[in-house]
C-alpha cells in the first residue's frame, strides 16, 4: 500500500468523539421549547394578504414598483458592486517544473513555459496534464492573441524564434538566428510584430521591435543590463509601452509603432515594473515600489491612457502587492497573477565534531525567505541573519530574536557574511543605496554602525571571511581573484603571485566580451575561507573542476588540493570545522556533505529534499557541535483579480 493510501485510510478510520449522554435530551428540549410556526414567504403575504388567491391589484402595483424604482436601483447597485475588487483563486496547479517564462494562455486555460531540460511545456489547468511541445528553448514565452501558437526562442541546432502549436507541437520559424538572441515579451495581435529584449554586450539591454515579415528590427530603448524594459503592445497593437531608468527616475514610455508619436510619464516617485495594458486599452497598470521605513512599499498603480496620451497621474489601486507576478489580463477583465510565499530559512543540524557526522536531523531555526545571509557569533550563542535591510540577532539554540538593527540604506548585494573572531564586527557584501556603492561593508555589532571597507565593482559575490586575528578579511572579486584586505588601512592585495595575477587580468581583458571563452580559460576561485589556524585560505576552483576545493598558503607560495568530488558533482559553498579536520559543503542543490581534510572520502550528511528547493551556505558553529545552512523554499498561489481600476474611470471602459 502506498503512503498516501495509508494516510488516507488512517484518517478515515480515525475514531469519533462520542456524544455525551444528555446532549440529545438537551437538543430535543430546544425543539419542544421553540415555537415552530409554519412560515409563509413575505412575497406570498404581500400578494395574498388574506391567505387566499393573489390580488390582481397588488400584482399590478408590484410590477409598477419594479419598473419605476427597482430597475434603476438595481442598475446603480450593479455599478456599485462593480467597484469592489473581486479576487479568487485559480485551480490548483504547480509550476515547479517551469524554470522560465511561465505565460497563461489568452483563454486562461493553459500555462506554457520552459521546463527543466529546456523543453517548451504546456500545462492544462483543468487536468494538470503536462506535455512537452518543443526542445532546446530558452527565455520567456508569449502566446499569440488567439492562443493557437506560442512564440519562443530556440537555441539549437539552428537558433530561431519559433511559433509552436500548443496542441500538436508543430513549429514554424518566425525569424532565423537572431543575433544576439531575442527574448520575447509580446506578440502583436495581428501576429506580424514581436517585442523582446536582447543584450548586444554584457552591459547593455535593448528593447527591440521586430517586423516578422520584413525582418526589420527597431531598437526602442537601451539600458544597462541590470534592469528590464518590459516592452508590451497595446491590445489593438498600434502602441508599445516600455520603461527606462534615468538616474533614480523611472520613465514610462508610450510610443506609436510607426514612430510618429512618443510620450513619456516621468513623475512616478519610485520604481516601475511589469507595466501591463488593460484589455480595453484604457489603462496601464504597473507595480510601483517606493522607499519607506523600515521597508519598501510595493503597490499596484494604474495610469489612464487615451489615444496615444497619458491622462493625469497614476492612482494606487491595490496596496502592498508584495511578490506579485502578472500573467495575463483577459478580455473579460480578469487579471491572472501569482503570489509567492517564502517558507525556507536557516536550518540547524547537530554534529559530532570528532567524526563530522550528524547526530540529529535538520531543524528550522529561523524562517526567512529572500536569500538571507547568516553567520555565527564567535561564542556560538547567537546567529546574525541579514535580510531585507534588517540585521537580526537570534539565539543559536532556540531561534528566538534577541535584537534587530535596521539598515535602511544598505542592500545586501552578493553573498557570504562573517563575524569577526573578536566579536566586534560583521563583514558582508552590500550596496549603499544613496551612494550606489558596492563593496565589502563592516557593521559594528554593538552600535549597528555601517562603514564601507572596500569599494568593489558589481557583480558582487564577494564571499568575505575573517582571519583568526580579526585584522584581515579575505574576499574574491567578480573575476574570481582572491584578495586580502587589512581592516586598518582598507588596502587590498591579491593572494596570487604577481605573475599569476597579471595573467588572470590579461585573460579577462582579452575575453571580457566573450564570456564562454573567458570561463574556459580563466582560473576562477570562489568562496575563500580562512583555515581555522589562519595559515591558508581554502576556496572552490570553478570551471572544469568545480568540484574541487583547494587551499593556498597566505603567502601564495604553496597550493594543495583538499578534495575533489567525483561524478561531476560540484561544491557550491563550504566552511571549515573549527578544528580544521573537516569541511562541510553544499552540493547538488539539495545535499550537504562533509569532507575530511586528511584526504579521506567525502560523505553526505543531509538531504534537504523534504525541506525545500536547495540548500546553501553551510556554516560550522564555533564549538563544532552544529552546522547551520540556508534552505530556499518557495510556494506559489495563483489568483485572478477583477474590478480594481478606479471607479470613475472604469465607467468609461
Amino acid at each position, binding site marked *: 500500500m502506498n503512503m498516501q493510501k495509508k494516510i488516507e485510510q488512517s484518517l478515515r478510520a480515525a475514531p469519533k468523539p462520542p456524544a455525551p449522554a444528555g446532549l440529545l435530551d438537551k437538543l430535543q428540549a430546544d425543539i419542544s421549547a*421553540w415555537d*415552530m410556526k409554519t412560515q409563509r414567504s413575505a412575497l406570498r403575504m404581500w400578494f395574498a394578504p388574506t391567505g387566499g388567491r393573489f390580488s390582481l391589484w397588488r400584482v399590478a402595483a408590484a410590477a409598477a414598483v419594479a419598473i419605476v424604482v427597482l430597475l434603476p436601483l438595481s442598475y446603480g447597485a450593479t455599478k456599485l458592486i462593480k467597484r469592489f475588487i473581486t479576487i479568487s*483563486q485559480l*485551480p490548483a496547479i504547480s509550476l515547479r517544473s517551469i524554470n522560465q517564462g511561465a505565460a497563461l494562455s489568452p483563454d486562461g486555460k493553459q500555462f506554457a513555459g520552459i521546463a527543466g531540460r529546456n523543453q517548451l511545456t504546456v500545462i492544462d489547468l483543468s487536468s494538470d496534464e503536462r506535455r512537452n511541445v518543443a526542445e532546446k528553448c530558452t527565455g520567456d514565452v508569449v502566446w499569440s492573441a488567439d492562443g493557437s501558437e506560442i512564440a519562443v526562442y530556440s537555441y539549437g541546432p539552428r537558433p530561431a524564434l519559433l511559433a509552436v502549436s500548443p496542441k500538436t507541437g508543430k513549429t514554424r520559424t518566425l525569424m532565423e538566428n537572431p543575433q544576439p538572441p531575442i527574448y520575447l515579451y509580446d506578440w502583436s495581435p495581428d501576429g506580424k510584430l514581436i517585442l523582446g529584449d536582447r543584450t548586444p554586450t554584457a552591459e547593455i539591454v535593448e528593447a527591440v521591435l521586430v517586423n516578422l515579415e520584413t525582418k526589420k528590427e527597431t531598437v526602442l530603448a537601451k539600458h544597462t543590463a541590470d534592469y528590464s524594459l518590459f516592452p508590451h503592445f497595446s491590445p489593438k497593437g498600434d502602441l508599445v509601452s516600455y520603461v527606462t531608468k534615468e538616474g533614480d527616475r523611472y520613465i514610462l514610455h508610450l510610443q506609436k509603432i510607426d514612430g510618429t508619436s512618443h510620450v513619456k510619464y516621468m513623475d512616478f516617485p519610485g520604481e516601475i515594473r511589469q507595466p501591463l495594458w488593460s484589455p480595453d486599452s484604457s489603462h496601464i497598470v504597473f507595480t510601483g515600489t517606493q522607499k519607506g521605513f523600515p521597508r519598501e512599499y510595493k503597490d499596484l498603480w494604474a495610469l489612464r491612457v487615451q489615444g496615444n496620451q497619458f491622462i493625469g497621474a497614476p492612482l494606487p489601486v491595490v496596496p502592498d502587492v508584495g511578490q506579485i507576478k502578472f500573467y495575463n489580463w483577459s478580455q473579460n477583465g480578469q487579471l491572472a497573477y501569482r503570489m509567492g510565499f517564502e517558507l525556507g530559512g536557516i536550518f540547524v543540524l547537530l554534529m559530532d565534531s570528532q567524526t563530522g557526522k550528524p547526530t540529529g536531523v535538520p531543524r528550522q531555526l529561523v524562517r526567512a525567505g529572500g536569500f538571507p545571509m547568516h553567520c555565527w557569533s564567535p561564542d556560538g550563542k547567537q546567529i546574525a541573519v541579514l535580510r531585507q535591510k534588517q540585521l537580526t540577532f537570534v539565539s543559536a539554540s532556540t531561534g528566538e530574536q534577541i535584537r534587530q538593527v535596521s539598515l535602511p540604506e544598505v542592500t545586501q548585494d552578493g553573498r557570504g557574511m562573517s563575524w569577526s573572531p573578536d566579536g566586534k564586527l560583521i563583514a558582508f557584501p552590500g550596496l549603499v543605496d544613496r551612494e550606489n556603492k558596492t563593496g565589502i561593508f563592516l557593521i559594528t555589532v554593538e552600535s549597528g554602525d555601517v562603514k564601507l571597507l572596500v569599494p568593489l565593482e558589481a557583480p558582487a559575490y564577494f564571499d568575505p571571511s575573517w582571519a583568526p586575528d580579526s585584522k584581515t578579511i579575505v574576499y574574491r572579486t567578480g573575476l574570481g581573484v582572491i584578495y586580502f584586505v587589512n581592516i586598518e588601512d582598507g588596502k587590498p592585495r591579491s593572494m596570487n603571485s604577481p605573475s599569476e595575477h597579471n595573467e588572470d587580468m590579461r585573460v579577462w581583458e582579452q575575453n571580457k566580451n566573450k564570456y564562454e571563452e573567458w570561463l574556459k580559460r580563466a582560473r576562477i576561485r570562489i568562496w575563500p575561507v580562512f583555515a581555522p589556524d589562519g595559515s591558508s585560505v581554502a576556496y572552490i576552483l570553478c570551471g572544469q573542476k568545480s568540484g574541487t576545493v583547494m587551499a593556498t598558503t597566505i603567502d601564495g607560495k604553496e597550493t594543495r588540493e583538499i578534495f575533489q568530488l567525483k561524478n561531476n558533482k560540484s561544491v557550491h559553498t563550504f566552511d571549515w570545522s573549527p578544528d580544521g579536520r573537516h569541511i562541510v559543503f553544499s552540493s547538488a542543490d539539495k545535499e550537504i556533505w562533509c569532507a575530511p581534510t586528511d584526504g579521506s572520502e567525502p560523505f553526505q550528511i543531509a538531504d534537504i529534499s*523534504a525541506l525545500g528547493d536547495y540548500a546553501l551556505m553551510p556554516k560550522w558553529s564555533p564549538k563544532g557541535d552544529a552546522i547551520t545552512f540556508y534552505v530556499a523554499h518557495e510556494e506559489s498561489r495563483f489568483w485572478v483579480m477583477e474590478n480594481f481600476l478606479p471607479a470613475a474611470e472604469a465607467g468609461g471602459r
Partner: protein
Amino acid sequence: MGKFMSTRIKTLCKRVKKADKDAACELLKIYYEDIYSYLRRLCGSRHDAEDLTQQTFLKVWSSLDGFTGRSKFSTWLYRIAHNTFLDWLRKDTAGVQSRLDQWWQDCTDQNSSPFENLAERQLAQCLYEAVDRLDEDKKHVVHLHYYQGLSISQTAKVLDVATSTVKYRLREVFKILRVKIGIEENGFIQKQTIPIEKGEAI
C-alpha cells in the same frame, strides 16, 4: 447515503417546515452525533462542543425555510455548523488552546484503544497531531472530507470554495503530512522532519 435515506431526509425536512416536532426530533437523532463530533474535534472541549451543537441546531430550525433542497441537507447542516464554529472562533479571543483533549487520550489508551496494533496507533497519533497543526483552511478540508466522510463536492459546498480548491488543499495536506510524519514510501522510516512549533503553519 442510499436513495431511501435521501428521500427520507427530504420528507423529514418537509415535515419540519410544517412545524412537525416529531420529524425534527428524528432529523436531530440522525445527525446530532456527527455534528457534535465534528465540532468537538474542532473546538477541543466537550463543553464548547455541546454549546456549538446546540447553537447549530437552533439555527437549523430557525432557517429551515431557507433550505431549498438544492444541496443535500447534510451539506447545508455542516455549513451551518462550520459557520457557527467560525463565529465562535472569532469571538473566543483566547483561541483554541489544545485540541488533544480527553476523548482522544481515551482512544489512544492501550486498554480501550480501537487501534489494532502499536504501529497503527502511532501513525494515528502522529496524523492527529499533524492535522491539528495544519493551517485552518487545510484542517477544515481534512475534518470534513476524512473525519466526517463528506465528498469532495460536499466539502467544497460547506467551505464555499471550488472543488478544485478542495483537491488542491488535500494535495498540499499530503505533502505536509508526509514531511511532518516522516514516512517513506517503502515503510515507516523516521526521516528528516521539520519540527514545527504547535500552532505554526508550514
